[in-house]
């Protein structure tokens, strides 16, 4: 650490980070504000805790800035191993809240090990991708990478916490940076389309459509001058059919009714604003009623009336929408975009593959949380319970994202210190 360190630090990211956390505290305060109590701001309140965690993160973050970057790379697998252990430990010592065993309760402080696992998994994947022997285009390397993701993914599914599990699944996106063929993304997209259509249309019709569609493409592409093989198309049809049937089976037999309901509501298969669709509908009303400029701080009638459930955590964006309106909501989205794009740009300047992939992992985490959380609040995605980074109330989430930001700051500042 020398004098120039302060010059090299990414102040833009710090500004984005601080403004997000403070804006989060303001909104948490609003959702928990009760005008009959007329209470002020207290450290016991959720907003107070948010600020306290913020200070704690700053202290820890300051320490992180002085840690040598090699340290992270070398300890990657250790941290990963510890976080996996902490996930396994949940099955023995975990606390069950809302039928999910995702918490440790130590002296009144609850910790969510899946948040730690996010850091651990990010480190492990980055480490794996930066290894000399790794070539992601090779099946072996790809499989190793997938296993690193799959272990925490399955452990979290078992809690069960499907929301966080999806986040872990999204780590898959890092592989594309290392040259994984975008065909996989294409297949993923097709799988998604097939998945949704399975829920919308009867299985036999999808299969018929699939066959017609594939054969049509085959005949269009198949010209006398340039013969192509029919074999891959048949494989595609068979794989897709299997996929559809298994989706159908999983949806009907493995999913619980509440999971099914969430998909049904978002796909418009069920119209029920009082029961199943209550959350989504109330969320849209709250956001929609905000208008251009919003109703103002503490003036949100929907927020005060607690119409939206879990508003301080998963549905915090509805408060933003109601009290700060289109202007405030767009600004919040803009800050997230700046944060992610800026970090990605900086990552590209890294010469060290480990550090670059780690920053990519951070961005993927931010991106997936941002997309799923706000998408859900806006009624574009099914109800998936995950927090909005820096904004939602919840210590573990804020702490882990803060630490990730500081690790980024460390990596970014030491970009030129090649070792």
């Amino acid at each position, binding site marked *: 650490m020398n004098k120039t360190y302060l010059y090299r630090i990414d102040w833009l990211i710090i500004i984005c980070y601080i403004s997000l956390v403070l804006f989060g505290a303001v909104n948490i305060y609003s959702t928990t504000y009760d005008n009959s109590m007329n209470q002020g701001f207290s450290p016991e309140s959720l907003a107070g805790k948010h600020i306290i965690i913020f200070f704690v993160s700053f202290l820890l973050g300051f320490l992180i800035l002085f840690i040598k970057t090699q340290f992270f790379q070398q300890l990657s697998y250790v941290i990963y191993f510890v976080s996996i252990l902490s996930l396994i430990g949940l099955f023995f010592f975990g606390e069950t809240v809302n039928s999910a065993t995702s918490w440790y309760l130590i002296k009144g402080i609850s910790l969510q090990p899946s948040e730690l696992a996010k850091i651990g998994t990010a480190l492990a994947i980055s480490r794996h991708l930066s290894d000399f022997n790794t070539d992601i285009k090779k099946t072996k390397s790809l499989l190793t990478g997938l296993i690193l993701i799959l272990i925490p993914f399955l452990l979290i599914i078992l809690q069960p916490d499907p929301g966080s599990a999806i986040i872990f699944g999204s780590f898959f996106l890092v592989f594309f*940076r290392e040259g994984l063929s975008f065909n996989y993304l294409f297949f993923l997209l097709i799988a998604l389309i097939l998945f949704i259509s399975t829920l919308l249309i009867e299985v036999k019709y999808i299969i018929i459509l699939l066959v017609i569609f594939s054969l049509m493409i085959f005949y269009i592409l198949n010209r006398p001058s340039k013969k192509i093989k029919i074999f891959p198309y048949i494989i595609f049809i068979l794989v897709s059919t299997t996929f559809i049937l298994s989706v159908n089976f999983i949806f009907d037999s493995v999913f619980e009714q509440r999971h099914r309901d969430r998909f049904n509501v978002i796909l418009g298969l069920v119209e029920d604003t009082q029961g199943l669709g209550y959350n989504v509908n109330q969320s849209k009303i709250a956001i*929609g009623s905000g208008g251009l400029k919003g109703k103002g701080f503490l003036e949100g009638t929907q927020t005060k009336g607690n119409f939206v459930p879990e508003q301080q955590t998963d549905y915090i964006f509805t408060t933003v929408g109601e009290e700060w309106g289109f202007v405030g*909501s767009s600004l919040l989205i803009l800050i997230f*975009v700046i944060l992610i794009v800026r970090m990605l740009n900086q990552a590209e300047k890294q010469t060290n593959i480990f550090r670059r992939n780690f920053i990519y992992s951070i961005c993927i985490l931010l991106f997936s949380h*941002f997309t799923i959380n706000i998408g859900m609040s806006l009624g574009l995605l099914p109800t998936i319970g995950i927090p909005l980074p820096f904004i939602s109330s919840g210590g573990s989430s804020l702490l882990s994202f803060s630490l990730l930001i500081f690790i980024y700051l460390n990596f970014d500042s030491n970009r030129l210190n090649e070792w």
Partner: protein
Amino acid sequence: MKRYYLQILTLLVASIFILRLLLLQIFNSEYKSLSEDNAVLESPIYPERGFIFDRNGKILVANQIAYDLMVIPENTKIFDTVELSKLINLSIDEFKLNFYKAKKFSRKIPSIILGEISKEDHAYIQEKLWKYDGFYLQKKSIRKYYHDIGSNFLGYISEVNDLDIKKDKYYKTGELIGRQGIEKYYENILRGKKGKKFFQKDRFNRIIGSYKNGKYDLLPETANNLKLTIDLELQKYGESLFKNKRGGIVAIEPKTGEILALITAPNYNPNILLGRDRSKNYRKLAKDTISKPLFDRGLQAQYSPGSPFKVLNALIGLQEGVINKNHSYVCNKGHFYAKDAFMECHCKVGTKNNLITAIHQSCNSYFAKTYKKIINSKETVSQGLDIWSNHLKSFGLGDYLGYDLSIGQKGFIPNSIYYNNWYRDGGWKASTIISNAIGQGEILTTPIQMANFTAAIANRGYYVTPHFLKSTSEIKTRKFKKKMTTIDSIHFKPVIEGMEKVVKYGTARIAQIKNIEVCGKTGTVENFIKINGKKTQLTDHSMFIAFAPKTQPKIALAVFVENGYWGSRWAAPIASLMIEKYLKNKVERKWLENRILKGSLEIEYSKHLSGKPFKINE
């Protein structure tokens, strides 16, 4: 590609979000109103409904507390339905139905199980209600009637229906509105103006505090008390006199037009339209098409006026100069008014009547001849009739009087257009319409119109529009214009003299009161109804108009007793008792009072309903 895919994805998602926000927040105003319905409760604050007093400040109507038994279905536990329904005196089926409706409406919001429980029942129920979780009693204000009188003009209040809400946006479901009489006519004064209070609700529709610290709250405007022109004691007395009879009394203070009493019989006790049996009782009243208790005979019944009408013809005759005070005609038990057309009279053969004797003897011949002269006094009979008709209209006949209740009838005074339509042009002459001379024929008047023209005679030439409202908390005195009749005041003197003699020596000697000069005129009105499509004559109506004292009259009234036969049999004594009660504050003629109080005409009324042949005028 691999350097930018994540940036592109991020920007793509962000733009989808911003587009979605645009749609939700800017281009869709539906969510704003949804949010208000959702989260803000507008709750009215009601001022207490105004009281109603009589002219002497005695209270007639005030408010009392009643209780609604409410339930919040969510809070109930298993309870003994039979026991609870017994406690509140409701049948089990009804109780179950109400409870089911409450549950269906909302499990979290209170609903009424039983409305308007009296104070007495309340104490009893309250004592045992602790056993039943989720049930509680809620205070409510309803009307309290201090006397069992005047339901015809007081009216009543009840909850607004869909039609009321449609007509006047002021009202919301469950609020009260004046239904008839004073309660309806002075609704705006009595109700005041409700205020508003806004509350913030939570997602269970529970109130969690005031909305924006009461910034938008509105204080209610206080309601006004009303002082009526009605004299409680007189009204009460009049109603008691009419027990077992049908008909009514309209009593007016001539100088001011203030209505002292408005009696219609049969009437009902205003208290039966309170509380939980209101609709049941109302249906019963509305279904009674024989005695018609909801029909205000004083304002709505149109009768032929009969003999009292003769005094008006006398006045018109004097005004038009076709007769004078001393002019006399001979009557031979009646007279031939046209070829082969004889009008009977009870005068002896060879009686010579001047104006005054004609009035107190109620000589048909005299007034038939006078009427003929009036009609023939102008170039054509049409002109003559119209002059006559206009004179009558100046007494407030043939049209609404404009008093402050929203029910009434115009009555009918024929003019030339009417007869020209009826008989074709020129197909009629004075003798054709001669019945009008003695108050039969086509003329129709309501009792209040008769009381009003009596007041105009008492005032010697003018009347003040009759009214019920004396003052309110805000308006201390009300000003009214004198309405002048078209008869010069000098012509009233002989007519009044004649009316005085009616009581002193004539047909209504029974109406004499010691030390009070009563002026009056009896009437015996032929009337017909249709039984099985056949016009059938019933016993005559007994009719009497009067004012007293002769100088500086304090009361003018019209009394009519349906099928009471001749005027002095029922109507005159009743009028006389009313005058005595009002001017002397007590009635000395107990024998007469007893005769009236005990007298019943129920047998007379049941005659034509029995289906058997019957005799009239027995």
